[in-house]
Every structure is written in structure tokens, then in C-alpha cells.
């Protein structure tokens, strides 16, 4: 049994503590928004906030999240509300396939939490560990800057 907080709610999970946090989120906890991309922490599709820090859930074992607070894309904003980054992504239509977006929005939310008025260079730097293959990069940068307004 591992205890942790997910999107503000304390939970107890029975998955093997050696299992990747990503599998626990998508499996036992049924939160599909965090995506598997590479399993090696190299693409950002599985980014979550772990005690507020952007973390790859695919190569973080559940045991490393014990007693800590995890925030996924589903929990960026309370309840059914949308985080400003989520609203801005829709406003800018900053998506094509959308598979990378969860991790992008987690990175962006962490940036805005630390720096509500980032420069374009700050946004680019904050997203540099997130890969996108459809080529929506510039729209996402615009969306994050819009969310900061």
C-alpha cells in the first residue's frame, strides 16, 4: 500500500511500488490524461507535477511519490474548471494530434506558477524538454504567453 496525494485528494494504491508512477496513474487510478511517450523521460508526454516540480512519470517509481503530492493534467485546475493554459491552448488552436499536450500544459503551468509574467525566451526554455512531432511549437508558445496575460 502506497499513500500519496493526487490532484489534491489523498489516495492509497496497491500497485507494486516499483511500478512506474505513470502506470499507476493510468492504471489503478484511471487518470488517462498523462501519456506514455518513450518510457525514458526523454519526451515529456508523461510530465506531472511532483511536489510542484515537473517530473517524468514514466521513469519515476511509485515509491518515489510516496507521501508526496502529484498533480496531473486533470488536476491543473479545480473541479471542472480549466487552467488558463488549457483555455489558451483552445483559443490559439495550439494542437494537432494533441498527444503531447498534457505534458506541455504541465510544463507551462509550472512555469506560470513560478513566474506569472514570463518572456518568450522563458516559455521556450520551460518547454524545451517537451517534444512535439506535429509542429505546433509556435502556437503553444503563443498560448502560454496568452495564458500569462
Amino acid at each position: 500500500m502506497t499513500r500519496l496525494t493526487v490532484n489534491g485528494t489523498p489516495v492509497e494504491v496497491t500497485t507494486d511500488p516499483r511500478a512506474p508512477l505513470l502506470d499507476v496513474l493510468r492504471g489503478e487510478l484511471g487518470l488517462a490524461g498523462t501519456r506514455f511517450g518513450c518510457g525514458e523521460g526523454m519526451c515529456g508526454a508523461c510530465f506531472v507535477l511532483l511536489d510542484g516540480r515537473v517530473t517524468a512519470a514514466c521513469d519515476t517509481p511509485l515509491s518515489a511519490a510516496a507521501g508526496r503530492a502529484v498533480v496531473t493534467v486533470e488536476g491543473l485546475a479545480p473541479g471542472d474548471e480549466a487552467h488558463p493554459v488549457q483555455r489558451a491552448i483552445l483559443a490559439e488552436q495550439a494542437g494537432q494530434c494533441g498527444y503531447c499536450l498534457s505534458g506541455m500544459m504541465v510544463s507551462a503551468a509550472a512555469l506560470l506558477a513560478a513566474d506569472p509574467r514570463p518572456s518568450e525566451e522563458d516559455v521556450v526554455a520551460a518547454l524545451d524538454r517537451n517534444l512535439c512531432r506535429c509542429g505546433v511549437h509556435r502556437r503553444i508558445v503563443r498560448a502560454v504567453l496568452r495564458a500569462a496575460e
Partner: protein
Amino acid sequence: MSVSVEPDGVILVRAGKVELGQGVLTALAQIAADALGADLAQVRMVPANTGEGPDEGLTAGSMSIARSGPALRESCARVRAAFVAEAARRWDVSPAEVTVRGGEFRHGAETTTYADLAKAVLAAEAQETTEPGATAEAGAAAEPTTGQAGEPGAEAAVFVGVSVPRLDLPDKVAGRPRFVHDLRLPGQLYGRVLRPPSPAARLTGLAPNEDGSTHENGSTHVVRDGSFLGVLAETEPEADRALARLRRAAAWDEHDTLPDEHDLHGYLRKGPHETIRVHPAPQTGATPAPQTGATPAPQTGATPEAGAGTAHRATYSRPFLAHASIAPSCAAARWNSDGSLEVWSHTQGVYPLRAALARVLGLAADRVEVRHVEGAGCYGHNGADDVALDAALLARAVPGRPVHVRWSRRDELTWAPFGSAMSVDVAAEVDAAGRVAAWTYEIWSQGHTSRPGYAGVPGLLAAAHLEQPWEHPAAADPAPAAGSGMARNAVPIYDFPRVEVTGHRLLETPIRSSALRSLGAFMNVFAIESFMDELALAAGRDPLAYRLDCLSDPRGRAVLRRAADAAGWGRPGLGLGFARYKGNGAYCAAVAEVEAEHDVRVRRLTLAVDVGRVVNPDGVRNQIEGGAIQAASWTLKERVRFDRRRITSGDWESYPILRFSETPEVAVELVEHPGTPSVGAGEAAQGPVAAAIANALASAIGVRVRDLPLTPEAVLKAIE
């Protein structure tokens, strides 16, 4: 194509096309809503499904809007006409007096809706067709009352031409389950496949306790068929651990079958080839014959020839490229107790996949149902079809239970088909003014399609690994009518007096290749447009003026000028690339602005595009922007790596793609041609962007790099 109205007024559209991340279902919904006179909100695009949808083949080749748009318009117009006729009957007026807009039918003060009329229309049609449960299917109703069915302009444009937001994006932004990866079917098991370590490897044995299809340790299950090896488990972590055990237990016989990655020109030119005359088109009845002649060596330079002006020639190449989607391929399958098979897949074609699965598995096609579920971005023939067979093979071991299979990142980057490497010779004779008098162009390439059903075989990866294996011939090329493969965009758009184009397709290949966004056009436009700049430079001409002098196509001229104007043409460090995709599709011109210090950086890309009538302006911009950024990534960084035995570029370090910090700003100019038919936008930017970047690099530092990618090493090599 089928369109039906539900009793509640919801209009179900089965277009047979699939969402690949390109927004096509949104665009088709816009077309349907206008043709129906309906509100967009009442139109529902039904995912493609062999159980009930039409067979529209593949969603590929930038053909969905051009081909399906008119067909969808016609189907919707027929449905609308049936409802108009019912409203007219009810009000005792002529159908011509009934208008429909926003889903509301009106005559004077009388109004009604699709929902109000649905019951009566359904009843009338049930009577006509005597088929129980018939809906207002397209084709079963009267002719449309106004305009010509299928023609743009027959109905009011309310949604067509407007930047309607993507219908699928809200779910994806909220993180809701939407992808095939998110499927959780009742009783679902998780499967993993242990792919061979190299393309020619064969399984020779499994260490004790892990052989055969017996239960492994109570909760996991090994499946073996020849060299196909997989595991099943109740959870993903268990499946991954079982896969790791299996990897340690498996012994393989491997062979060195791969070419020298540093001599792609030599590999591609060695043969045996099938040689085809691309232009002038051969006489009908002529059959191309395989030939294994001498290997022409790449040549580059200018040689004066007496009496024939000046001859220029150059050789260009591109490496193998990976699809490199952010998600690895994924599928689910279930064998039912009656022997039928259900498959959930992000394939580009549910029907071709069904046929291929049925052949490998020895089933009648109607015993297989394939349902489309979205995957991550699809840029051509990736692993989507292959993983569907993997899921079916694993699910066969556990009848009644759904099996969900996801590839690893390494499998995705090393086992999905690649876009073929290509080598090209271009030669031109120019007159004293530098104008082209004769142009010859010769291509060496692997084929560009091994999609399910190609060359008469299923073409699914695991089929080649079974105990009774399917042979997979070298990749073929689509027919010229389907846009060709290596020869796509090989015939230049310019007004040259004499043009000869020849292609040589490799017939024996150890590396699997298939369709990747724009197929041969990426390479051919890169080569043609690079060479145009070389000719302009040799003639002392401005590259834009040089092109305009030999381009009579007015839409092409407009697009070139628009891109040049928007980019501020005339400054140093800019480069131009231009093509009309497939010779009959979208016009696209790109201007790149490049800086080269430690590496090559593209600061800005400015593109002008003419896709005819624009269905969704922001959708077109998004496709062109994305295509441009992906093409910049291919051009600057990408190259499948291998040694003589294994594909070695199996992760994001060994196969890097463009990152945020490397991504150029992209500006898109839409050159509107509302009176001309819509053509696809998805692949138009690939070739022009590659050429624009190479030409900008040459303009910036005076170095011509002819072998992609344009890495610092390639630049240094070109300087030497």
C-alpha cells in the same frame, strides 16, 4: 459515404475518413453542415468502422478534402432534399419554396427542423426500400432541389471558409481518454511483443521455463509463433517485467544485412532496380524491365560542352527518415467465441487493414471488424497496422478477452517502416543567358509504399516472423494516378523545352520502407529547387526572378511572389523553395531565413499557399505550419542510423527531432482561390521548406550542401 438523420435531429456522417491529428473530421463536418443547411453542432462524425461505415480506402496523400469533400456534399444534398420534400408536402408548397438554414426549414411563417421531419422521412423511405430500419441514407432520396449536388456554391457557405475550432481538441486539452492508448475494455489484458534485435534476426530458442505458450508464473502468458514472441499480463507493469524476462531468455541468430549508412548513394544505385521512364510518359503497353547495369557514380560540377551551351550537373540525397510520432503504435483486439475478431486501431484505412488481418489469420474478411480509434499524429504508413496484427496474434491465445498492445519507443523508431533514402542526379544544359534548354533527372530509391495489401501480400510486420512466414517483397510505388512514389514531384513545374525523368526502384532491400508524408516529393523538390538556385547563381541571376522567367502558371507565380513579398525578399541569408504538390495539388512557396554559426539555425519560415477553396483557414495554416516545422526537423537533424546489422537510432537521443529552442517562427500567407476546387494542405510544405533552408544556407555562407540532413558535419564536408 453515408449520412443519416436520427429521430432527435442529430445527423450522423460516416465519411470513412479517419482523424490523424490533421483536423480532417472537423473540415468534413463543416462541409456536411453547409450542404445540409444544418447547424455544425448537430453534425456528428462517426469514426470509421468496417462494421457499418463506407469503404473509403485510406486517409492519405492529401486527398481527403479533394475527393471526399464533393462526395460528402452530394450525399448531404440528397438528404437535405428528402427533408425539404417532406416539409413541402406538409405545408402543401413546392420544394423550391422551402429554405433551410441552421437546421431550420422555413416557408413564410412556417418552420420545422430535421428532428421534427425525421420520423416522416424515415417512414417514407422505409416504405420505398422495404428494408426494415432504413434511415435517410444518401442515395435513397430525391434529387436536390437547388444547385448541382457536390458542387461548391450549391448551398450557403456558413461554416465552409470559417476557422471553426477543432472538434477533437477539447477532450485532448482536458486530458480525457480519447486515444487508442486510453482504451480500457472490460477484462482487458496487456500485451507486449519482443521484436527481434535486427531486421534479419530469427529466434533460435528460449531459456528453460519460458518456452512455448504455457503459463509463465500464473499471471503472465507467453505466446510464440516462429520468431514472433509476446507476453500477456493483467497489468502494464507486469507485462513490462515479463517482457524484460523474455528478452533475457530469448536467443537469436543475427546476420549483417544492412548497407553502409555512410554510402547511401552507392547502396541505392547498386540495384537490382526496376527502371521506369517518368517523363516523357512511356507509350502504353511498354513494360518496365528490371535492370542490373553498371553503377553510375555521383557527379557534381559544371562542364562546358561544345555547341550545346553549358552543362551543369549535381547529385543530391536524403537519408532514411522515421515517422517518430510522439506515441508508439497501439491497438486492441478480441477473439469472440464465434471465431470472429474485433480490432481497435489508429490505422489510416480500416478496410485495407481488415483484409490484411483476415489473410494472415486465415479468416473471411467479414469475420473481422476494425474500428478506428485516434492515435497520436500520423504522417504516413507507421506501425499502426502492424501493432493491430500483434494484438490479434496475442489475443488469439486468450479467446474472449480483449488484449491491448503498445509498442516501445525503440520498436517504434526501429521497426515502423521508414521513408526511403533517395539519391538523385540532375543535369541541365543552359543557353548563354542561363536559361534551361534541356533538363535530365534521374532517381534511385527504394519504393514508397508497403501498406497492407501492397504487392499482393498482407504486409504486416509480424506476418514475416511467423512459423509459416509471409514473404515481404521490397516496397512498391503508388501508380502515377495515385501520385507516384519516388517520382512524386520529379517533373519540374517550369517551362523547360526538353525534360527527361527516369526512376530506378530498388528490388531487394533489407530496410523496410513505406509512405512518409509527401513520399518522394520531399527529396525531389529539395533537389530540383536546390539546383534551380545553383543555375541562377551560375547565371548571375536572382533566384526569384530566375524562376519567374520560366514559370508561366499564374497561380504558381502568385504564390512565389506572395511568399517573397511577405518575407522581404532581397536580403542576404534568405532562400526560396517552391512546388505544386503532386503537380496537381496545393501550390506552396517557402522562404527560409537561416543563420549558420556553430550549427544551422532557421530563424523564420514564410510560406504562401494556394489550396483552392479554403474549407477551414486556420486548419490550413495549422497544417502548413506543422508541415514546415516537421520539414525543418527532417532537413536539419534527422537521419535513421544503422550499423551493418541493427538499426541503432532507437531513442530520442540517437534520433533527435527539432526542439522548441530550435523551432523557427512560421508565417503563412493564404492565397485565396475560392472559385477553384479544394485540395489538401497536409503535405504541400515538405519539399519547398527543405529547399528553402538549403538555399538560405548557401546564400548565408556560400556553401552548397546537397546531402541531407544539413548538420554541422555535412556543412564542413561540403566546405572540404
